[in-house]
């Protein structure tokens, strides 16, 4: 009989988790000014690095140095991936900088297929820099333009806060499969940048809800930690192992962490009183 009672109590504990939740109303719009300003600095730093790294990367491509260009591909992308929710606000540039072959009807042969992945295709699939110079020039120009546009942009708070979840949605929907960097298999670098970018946003707004929602903070931090521990297993030199080294079990661990972060972070805007 005792068993029955405890089971009952415990079922209630679970049910309680599904009772109506109320978005926090305690966060005033002004409270967000500081975190947003800090995030703007984070974005600027990443853009600055992106411009410099892209210069070195595209120079190597144009110089015909396949090995150097290959080695710079993954690290160059990281500062783009970290701020992807903001970079994606300009869909024309996101398309020309970061689209994939299957975004285009004629795939790799499509003239609209440009940017990082077009160059990746040349370098890793064809092992050559042949005909890549125009793509390198275009990428450099696009990245420069992106930097200019974002510098002039006032960051919308809901886009910034929503970006934490948006990064996880991206990973969950189209990256966990290893389809992003399909020619170079350097997906784990992108993952790391996506997670860092999401965590940055979370960490900036964290003090605003730390007191009211400690359980949430602990859970989300725990899942970010789980991702870090899992990715750390694949660290190699300054970067990461190729994606095909990822075991099925670790892929499942990452997938579960991403899904859970996506679920939890989807409430972040509401918790901060944003629409």
């Amino acid at each position, binding site marked *: 009989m005792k*068993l*029955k009672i*405890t*089971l*009952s*109590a*415990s*079922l*209630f*504990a*679970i*049910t309680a988790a*599904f*009772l*109506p*939740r*109320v*978005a926090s109303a305690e966060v005033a719009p002004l409270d967000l000014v500081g975190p947003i300003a800090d995030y703007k600095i984070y974005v600027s730093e990443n853009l600055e690095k992106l411009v410099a790294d892209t210069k070195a990367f595209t120079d190597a491509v144009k110089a015909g140095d396949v090995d150097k260009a290959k080695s710079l591909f993954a690290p160059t992308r990281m500062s783009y991936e970290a701020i992807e929710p903001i970079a994606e606000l300009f869909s024309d540039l996101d398309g020309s900088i970061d689209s994939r072959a299957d975004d285009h009807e004629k795939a790799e042969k499509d003239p609209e297929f440009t940017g990082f992945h077009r160059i990746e295709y040349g370098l890793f699939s064809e092992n050559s820099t042949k005909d890549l110079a125009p793509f390198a020039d275009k990428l450099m120009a696009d990245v420069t333009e992106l930097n200019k546009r974002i510098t002039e942009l006032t960051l919308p708070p809901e886009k910034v806060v929503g970006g934490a979840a948006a990064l996880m949605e991206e990973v969950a929907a189209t990256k966990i499969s290893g389809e992003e960097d399909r020619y170079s298999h350097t997906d784990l670098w992108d993952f790391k940048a996506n997670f860092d970018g999401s965590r940055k946003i979370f960490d900036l707004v964290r003090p605003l809800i730390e007191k009211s929602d400690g359980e949430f903070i602990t859970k989300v931090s725990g*899942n970010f930690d789980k991702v870090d521990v899992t990715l750390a297993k694949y660290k190699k030199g300054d970067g990461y192992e190729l994606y095909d080294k990822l075991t*099925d079990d670790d892929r*499942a*661990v990452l*997938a*579960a*962490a991403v*899904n*859970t972060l*996506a*679920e939890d972070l*989807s*409430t972040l*805007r*509401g*918790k901060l*009183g*944003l*629409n």
Partner: protein
Amino acid sequence: MGKDIDKFTTTRRSVLFGAGTAVVAGLTAASAAQKQGEQVTDAPVSDKTQERQSFYGVHQAGIVTPRPAAGMIASFHVLAKTPEEVERLFRTLSQRIDFLMKGGTPPEFDDKLPPSDSGILGPVIPPDNLTITVSLGSSFFDQRDWLINHKPKQLSRMKASRNDALDADLCHGDLSLQICANTPDTNIHALRDILKNLPDLMVLRWKQEGSVPVLPPKADGTHETARNFLGFRDGTANPDGNDAALMDQLVWVRQSDEPSWAQAGTYQVVRIIRNFVERWDRTPLAEQEAIIGRKKASGAPFGGTAEFDVPDYSNDPEGKVTALDAHIRLANKRTKTSDENRILRRPFNYSNGVSKSGQLEQGLLFICYQADLEKGFITVQRQLDGEPLEEYIKPIGGGFFFTLPGPANEDDFVGRTLLEASGHQMTRIKS
């Protein structure tokens, strides 16, 4: 044959020119009246949305429960490793299944937050005859030291049979959910609810949905077996699911050499069996019937006249009536000893899209249950290996699972007996 064509042409002409028989005219009039006032995008109507199955009992629902029109198998990778995590998994699953099978109103959240429910069935969830059946794969036990000694004796990783071309992305799994309801939308709603509520403990590996063609009720109240995508009735020789003694013998685990926690559970076999339907449709009727061993229209065995006539092979040792390698004869020899090899089939037909060669990706989502996996599916499949039907079918996925005993009542949860057997003290007790 010529006569049939004439009849068909006449009927078609009747409909086309609106000058048909009374029957045709009557039908047209009825549907016209019924449709009055209906709009193009009105939801189709069903009077079965309040049909409800119970999650509770000695056995789980969805096994001897009459199969509804829509079914799905979803296979998961389970992240829950510790006894505490597995307890949370089982309890949360049970709590979601309880809600989904009963139906009702999901909690309402602040509109600045994502809603608690996908809303695809509207603000009030109808039960719609939903059942969700939870089963565990061999890997669930193998990958948890504390469970390894508690694995059901016959649970193993499905091995490829001779004709199989298994796709690793459609095979096995730590946990399977069989989700069945009157409509596919109800199944999809249930799956999305479970995914949303257990993102940290389960990751979806593969799923296959299927359906069964619906028939009008018969005036005399009798039933007939549904057809598969080969156009044949599938399940005619199933043991009677209403015969509790027979189910105890063939379906529910009661063997003394099985763990006591597993009693009243059952072995679930899932097979995704592609059918080469274009080729099948280009095969002469007589050959189709010879391969299966039944008449296509009636479902009667050779030498019989009605579906449920029992074939008598003792008078046909050379296979003159029913070929020795006919599907139904290889599967069930109809002898005293073959009786123990009977399995409870509960399949659905699936249709997925188009192959690279431009052919239909269709087939059978085969699901069956048995108390003894070796005597059941494994033996039957071994008998079928090499059958002529193999030219038209290709198993591409599936797995073996153990269906947990049923939760006794609302204070219980699915999988409790396993956790208790492992020595786990239910620690997740918060008040």
